[in-house]
């Protein structure tokens, strides 16, 4: 038995934001695979839940004429994995989605919930960070768009103002056209496990040999998912070589604030950042049309 005191169901965004504005204790629930576990563990007591599952306008994945990809936050991980728009344009997000949980969880859990839960281990986060995803947030006062890098404030804390809900995840064409990426989830088990480290690398290669742009997104390397600005700035314009890739791996560690947990020590996580950034980058280079680097 869950300690659920009240359960509301909204059918429109307006109804949801109104209910949220009226009752600041309401917790939004979509797939429920994170919220119900918190209730089960007693971390949330006398829960007052607002289900948004019936809001049709929060569903679906589509590509607009201007090339922007709009992902409805109620899209489940299974839908992300199988969606033709995602597979064709931003496969790095499908790779990340496939690494999450097991089939039963992916059938229910939503990408919007994964983001709004605010976990540094969110499997979607490293990929969304390198894609410079933008989040559209709507409240009774209106709507605003926030880059995902600014949305994560701390462990379990995100920039959702009281009464706001996430309504769209937006990927702009300048952030995926010409890019290729690779995602590595490092965990003790392949399924049903939380990442010890998640690494997403997106890159654009000029003339087959020069790094035009390299982006590195990490999960569980700090209190929130993060990017590696030093390594990315170093990479720009450099020739693709094993030495440059090794230096990118070393520099990536500088942006991290890893900590020790029962899953892994800080030192081990830093080692993984250096190593897996290089492996993900090497795979991304090949996908982007560059030469394979041993």
């Amino acid at each position, binding site marked *: 038995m869950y300690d659920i005191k*009240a359960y509301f169901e909204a059918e429109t965004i307006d109804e949801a934001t109104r209910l949220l504005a009226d009752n600041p204790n309401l917790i939004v629930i979509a797939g429920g695979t994170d919220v*119900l576990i918190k209730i*089960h563990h007693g971390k949330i007591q006398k829960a007052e839940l607002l289900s948004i599952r019936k809001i049709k306008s929060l569903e679906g994945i589509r590509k607009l004429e201007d090339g922007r990809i709009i992902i409805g936050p109620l899209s489940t991980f299974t839908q992300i994995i199988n969606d033709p728009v995602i597979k064709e344009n931003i496969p790095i997000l499908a790779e990340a989605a496939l690494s999450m949980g097991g089939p039963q969880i992916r059938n229910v859990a939503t990408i919007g919930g994964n983001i709004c839960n605010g976990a540094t281990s969110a499997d979607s986060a490293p990929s969304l960070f390198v894609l410079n995803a933008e989040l559209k947030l709507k409240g009774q006062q209106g709507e605003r768009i926030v880059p995902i890098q600014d949305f994560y404030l701390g462990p379990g804390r995100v920039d959702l103002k009281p009464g706001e809900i996430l309504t769209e995840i937006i990927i702009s064409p300048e952030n995926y056209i010409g890019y290729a990426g690779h995602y590595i989830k490092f965990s003790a088990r392949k399924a049903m496990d939380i990442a010890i480290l998640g690494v997403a690398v997106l890159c654009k290669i000029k003339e087959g040999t020069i790094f035009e742009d390299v982006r590195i997104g990490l999960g569980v390397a700090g209190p929130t998912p993060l990017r590696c600005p030093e390594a990315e700035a170093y990479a720009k314009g450099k020739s693709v070589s094993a030495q440059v890739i090794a230096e990118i791996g070393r520099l990536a560690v500088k942006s991290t604030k890893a900590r020790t947990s029962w899953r892994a020590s800080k030192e081990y996580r830093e080692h993984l950042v250096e190593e897996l950034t290089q492996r993900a980058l090497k795979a991304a280079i090949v996908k982007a049309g560059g030469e394979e680097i041993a």
Partner: protein
Amino acid sequence: MFWGFLGRREGSLLRQFRLKVNGKEVQVEAPAGITLLKLLRDYLGLTGTKEGCGEGECGACTVLLDGVAVVSCLLPAAKAEGREVTTIEGLAQGEKLHPLQEAFISEGAVQCGFCTPGMILSAKALLDNNPRPTKDEIREALSGNLCRCTGYSQIVRAVEKAAEVMARGE
């Protein structure tokens, strides 16, 4: 829609649930905040679905919701309202077991049996969409189901066998 405030204790606020379970329309009164797992086991007497971890890690409580495998321990029963649920009790036709059930028996894929209903439903979700899966596809489809007797090899074999039997139309 608002269901009202529920007390902490079970039974303090009841609600009518209407859903289809194993092909039959059911209507049952139960506490509004319960999970689908509890509704099935305690209010509909369908104890074939098991509770293992209770937090979505082990897959013992797997059922099909509109044909899709879900963990019923993390699903508020209200989310199943108006939808179709398939449990292990819904697989056999009269005395005739489903080919998956037959194969689990003949391949020795059942030891303590606690994970078996969930395993079979995950396997059914796979075979309904992909009648001739590869070994890797079977392992992937069962990756959300834990077996602590570690009979995984026999379980994968059983799913392969069931797929063969079903392909022959037996």
